Every structure is written in C-alpha cells, then in structure tokens.
C-alpha cells in the first residue's frame, strides 16, 4: 500500500462530516463578499459542495490557533464577610484547546504557523495558549490547484505543493483528491478515513504540482535581503516614497498569516473581569505610543519600515535566516491603495549599494518578470512560460553570506 489515498468529493465531505462529530472542523466559508475560515457542523459538511470548502480565504487561518481575541486570565475578587477590608483575588486560565481539524488552507497558510512557532514556542518563554491549540490542531492542506494573483511563495523558499507545516496534504486530480500524510498526526487522522489506495495516481499528483509551480511568475532575487533591507533603515527618503499612499489601516497585518503582534487589555472590574489578548497592528501609531506622548515610530514611513524590516531583516536576524513572510500575497491583493510588499522589498534590495564578497562580478542582473497587475486575476489557465521551480532559493531560508 502506498502512502497515497484517494477520495471522491462525496467521500471527502463524508469524512469531514464524521470528523466534525468529535472535533471542530474549520474550513473556508463564503460570508458576504469574503471567504473566511469558520467552523462547520457535521450536518453542513455532509451536504457541502466540496468546491465551496476549497476556496482560497481572504483572511489567513491564523485564528484557528491564535484567536483574534481570547481571554488570557479570568479574575475574581471577594470580600471577606467577617472583615470587609480583606479582599481575596483569584486568577485562572480559562483557555480550552478544542481538538481541531483545519481543512483547506494552502501551503503558505500552513507555513505561516511554522513562522509563528518560532516566537510563540521556541523562545525563552513559551506561549501556553498557542501551544495548546497548536497541539490540538491537525492541518489538512490543499496543494494549490492554481496560482492566484499576488502569489509569491517562490520568492520565500516555497512552492504551491510545499508540505512544511502541514499534517496532511491533498491534491486535486481527475475525479477526486489524493491525500498524503506528512506527519504522524496526519497519519492518525487519515487512518480512519477509509480512502482507497492511490499508488496509481502518483504521476497525476506530480503533474498537478509541477503545473502550479510553473504558473508562478519567476521569483525576484532576495540575495542578502536581510542585510540590504537593514541598510535601508536610515534611508528616510526611500520609506517616505514607498509609503506615500499608505492609509495606516492595518489591513495588511490583520490578514497576514505570519503577523504575530497582539495587545493585552483588561475588561470588567477587579471583582469580576478578564485580561484579553487581541491581535494588534504595527501599522497604527498607537502601537508604540508611550504614555508620555513619545512615540519611537510616529510616522507611517517609520511603521512600514518596521513591518517590512521585521519580515525580511529583523525576523531572519533572530531566527536563523528564515523570513516572516510566506508569500501568500494577501497583503498585496487586499491593500486598499495597492501597496505591494514585493515591490518594496525588491526596490530596497535592488537599489542597495552594499557590496558582498560573494557577489558575482559583472554578471547582468536576471530579468525578472513584472508581477501581474493587481486588478487582474492570473489563474493557471494560461500558464506563462516562466523559469522552472528549481530556481527557488534554499528551502525557507534567505541565502546567507
């Protein structure tokens, strides 16, 4: 028996429906004009059109493990009835990590959790809320059937069939889907699925992966991006120019699968209240505003500089060269004024006059295809003859000197 399993659309929704009777099953769901990750009931899944579950979501699935708002601490205080001046305060952690299947995200979404794992799990302090949900979640990822407008996972060391961060990956083929367990967790989830062996579909899967990879525009070179973006720090004219249009709305950060920032606030009273964690955005002036009125990042140029630098310079500096960007392109397509992080990074790198010892001598810069215009979709129906996927940099890492 091969490690590939085949499911028809009906079998797939049946399996998900079965899973939903014991677990929270989250999948893309159309809500008004948006597609977002939401929990489905077993009944909904049994009757679901599989294509509706495979839509690309507008927001990332980050909320499955890092909710937009959650209670970190619940506190209560009680007065001693014998001595009203005596108060007893108790604190507790109300977090419940529900067993979850996160279905239908893309490889970039799954890799987003790998990016979040480093600050949340691998530092001096481990975040127990994130850890508990991460542990309780099985990530079932669909290999991208098409390339969407804004996609640039190949810039950051990935591809449309990347397994990193996924527990199960599946690929659409004629008549259904081919599933492959990536981790033991994934294997355990698939064990009870009852899907047929799909050894004979290996070629079809490989062909689908190759077609999607080839549909991506060629990546821009991000050689020494960490140092080059850092070298731009004091180039105020550059950041001013790149952020003229920015509205500081923070949309780019809220839909990002790798943005890690949050705030902590209290609500209620000492007698009965909660300490909450909510997503926050580095693009708003209040993010770093101090009580005195002093703000180390008062302008939108300062803030964009921090956002771009965090993803391509500060985070790699801290975490062994890995980027805090998975190239999903959500910030590119959702920005109300069409700011494009690809453009900013490329401009920061290309105009940088830092010289590195390993720099090729007098070699012409590779011709880079301009990214697709923002207003137009660039599905795989018309795959452009681009450079092959083997051009990608080493897996998930920026090239180090």
């Amino acid at each position, binding site marked *: 028996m091969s490690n590939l399993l085949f499911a028809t659309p009906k079998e797939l929704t049946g399996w998900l429906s079965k899973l939903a009777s014991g677990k929270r099953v989250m999948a893309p769901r159309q809500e008004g004009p948006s597609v977002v990750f939401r929990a489905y009931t077993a009944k909904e899944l049994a009757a679901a059109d599989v294509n509706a579950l495979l839509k690309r979501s507008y927001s990332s699935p980050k909320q499955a493990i890092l909710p937009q708002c959650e209670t970190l601490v619940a*506190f209560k205080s009680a007065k001693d009835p014998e001595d009203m001046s005596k108060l007893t305060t108790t604190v507790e952690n109300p977090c419940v990590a529900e067993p979850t299947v996160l279905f239908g995200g893309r490889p970039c979404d799954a890799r987003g959790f790998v990016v979040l794992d480093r600050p949340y799990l691998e530092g001096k302090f481990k975040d*127990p809320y994130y850890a508990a949900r991460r542990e309780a979640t099985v990530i079932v990822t669909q290999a991208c059937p098409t390339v969407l407008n804004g996609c640039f996972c190949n810039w950051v060391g990935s591809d449309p069939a990347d397994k990193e961060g996924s527990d199960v990956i599946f690929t659409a083929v004629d008549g259904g889907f081919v599933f492959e367990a990536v981790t033991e967790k994934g294997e355990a989830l698939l064990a009870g699925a009852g899907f047929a062996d799909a050894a004979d579909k290996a070629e079809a899967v490989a062909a689908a992966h190759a077609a999607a990879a080839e549909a991506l525009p060629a990546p821009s070179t991000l050689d020494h991006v960490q140092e080059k973006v850092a070298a731009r720090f004091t180039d105020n004219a550059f950041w001013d120019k790149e952020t003229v249009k920015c509205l500081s709305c923070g949309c780019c950060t809220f839909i990002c699968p790798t943005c890690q920032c949050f705030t902590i606030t209290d609500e209620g009273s000492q007698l009965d209240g909660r300490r909450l964690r909510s997503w926050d955005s580095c693009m708003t002036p209040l993010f*770093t505003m101090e009580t005195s009125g002093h703000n180390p990042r008062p302008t939108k140029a300062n803030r964009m500089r921090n956002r771009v630098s965090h993803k391509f310079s500060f985070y790699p500096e801290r975490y062994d060269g890995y980027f805090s960007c998975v190239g999903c392109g959500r910030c590119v397509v959702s920005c109300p004024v069409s700011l494009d992080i690809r453009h900013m990074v490329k401009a920061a790198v290309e105009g940088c006059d830092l010289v590195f010892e390993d720099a090729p001598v007098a070699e012409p810069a590779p011709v880079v295809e301009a990214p697709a215009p923002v207003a137009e979709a660039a599905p795989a129906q018309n795959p452009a003859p681009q450079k092959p996927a083997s051009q990608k940099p080493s897996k998930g890492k920026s090239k180090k000197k």
Partner: protein
Amino acid sequence: MSEHDCGCGKNPYMPEVATVLDVITESPTIKSFRVRFDNEEAWNSFTYQPGQVGQLSVFGVGESTFVINSQPSCKDYLQFSVMRAGEVTTALHKLHPGDKVGVRAPLGNWFPYEDWKGKDIIFVGGGIGMAPIRTIMLHVMEHASEYGKLRLLYGARTPEDMAFKGDLPSWLNSDVLETTLTVDRAEGEWPHRVGMIPSVLKELNPSPDNAIAVLCGPPIMIKFTLAAFRELGFKDENIVTTLERRMKCGIGICGRCNLGGKFVCLDGPVFTQAQLNNLPPEM
C-alpha cells in the same frame, strides 16, 4: 486546559496576586508601592536580578512595565516606583495598603554587575530614571568591597520632584557612596547643587579609567549625559543604560518593543551604549 496542562511549565501571562503592603509618596507625581505575593510558595521561591522588570497590574484596568527597584537581598517586599501619567498608573496611585495587584516578574535582562568588579562606578539618575539606578546601586553598595569608588549623581527638576527622599540621608551619609544631588531649579532652601545633570557631571569630572557609567533618565537627559560621558573619555562599552518602551507581553512575542531584531523586554532593557550603536537608531 488547566494552567499546568500545556506541558510548558509556568504560564508567563498569569500574574501572581500580590498585596500592597505600603505606599510611599515620593513626589507630587511619584509613588512607591511595596508589594508581596499572596502565595507563600511563589514568594519564597521568587528571585530576580537588579535591573529586571515586572508587569504590575490593577485588575480590571491593565498592566504596565516597571523596574523592580528594591534590591534582591530584600526578602520582605518588591518595590515599584510609579509616575502617574496614564490609565494604569493613575489607578495604581489610588491604591492603599491591603489592596490587590498582579505581578508578572522577573522579565528582561539585568545589569552585568559581575563584570564591574574592581571598577569604579558612577550612577547617574534623572527624575523617575532613578528607579532602576536605585536597585543596582543598592545591590552594588551591599558588596562595596568588591568594587572601586562608587558615586551617585541624582537630578530632578525641583527639590519637590526628587523621589526616594527616605533614602537620601543614608545615601548622603554613606561610607561607600559619594552622593551629589542636583535640581534644575531650586525653590526655597536647597543645600545641594543647582544645574543640569550633564554640566554637573562635567564639574565632577569622574575619571574614565577602569570605570563604568550607569545612567537612566528621560531621553533628552540621556542624550546630553551620554555626550558628557564621551567628552570625559568614557568608552561606549563602559556606558550602561536601561531603556523604556511601550510593552505588553514582556516576553518577546507581542512585537512592539523591538529595536531592530532585539526586543527591549527580552534582550534588554539593559544595554551598553556600544550595543545600542549596533542597533537601528529608532529611539
């Protein structure tokens, strides 16, 4: 999920409930709070290093970051000195002995006092910046025989604004510490100096040889005091400061206190000027 289910030890977001033992009015805007954990076991096992900070909270209002400014040898209480400025600090200023607060500590790094042994140390504190100086200075004074000459230059706007008035007599009369006090403007009787910290520092003219400068204060004071120390011949690796930033988590995750790739809450708040020179200029 109960608190210890997650297999990752202590929950860094869970505060220890503590009782306010004492409130000391230091100046019209500064109060010091002496607090002790309600949980005896947690209190008895609690240790920290001079320079580390804590998240002090009023339940229902919020948390803010303050340096623990009692010295680690003090086993009776933790002291935090708080300038009234925003929501949390205003709520803190309303507290009385017996009231409850939350404490998450210790967080961050500390002053590298082991490396300073055998050296002269000059401490310079401006305004509420004296709080972190107090911790490390008291700690070093307890081990004065291991260090060279110890000096303090403490400045405030007016005599009224000078905090730690309860400590000043013992600092002025100490055998191991040479104390200079200065104010920007004197009102009434003031037997000490009048003048800005940088100019008084230059008059004191401390030798940079085998010496460490430790300074903390508002940004403008740091800027000119740093220049004065450089003028006196102090090298940037021997000038130590502790930074302030808006913080939330205190454990290097929430993302707002970064200076380049470093988090002030986790990798700081104590840095040498030489280290700061290698970080992006975003103060």
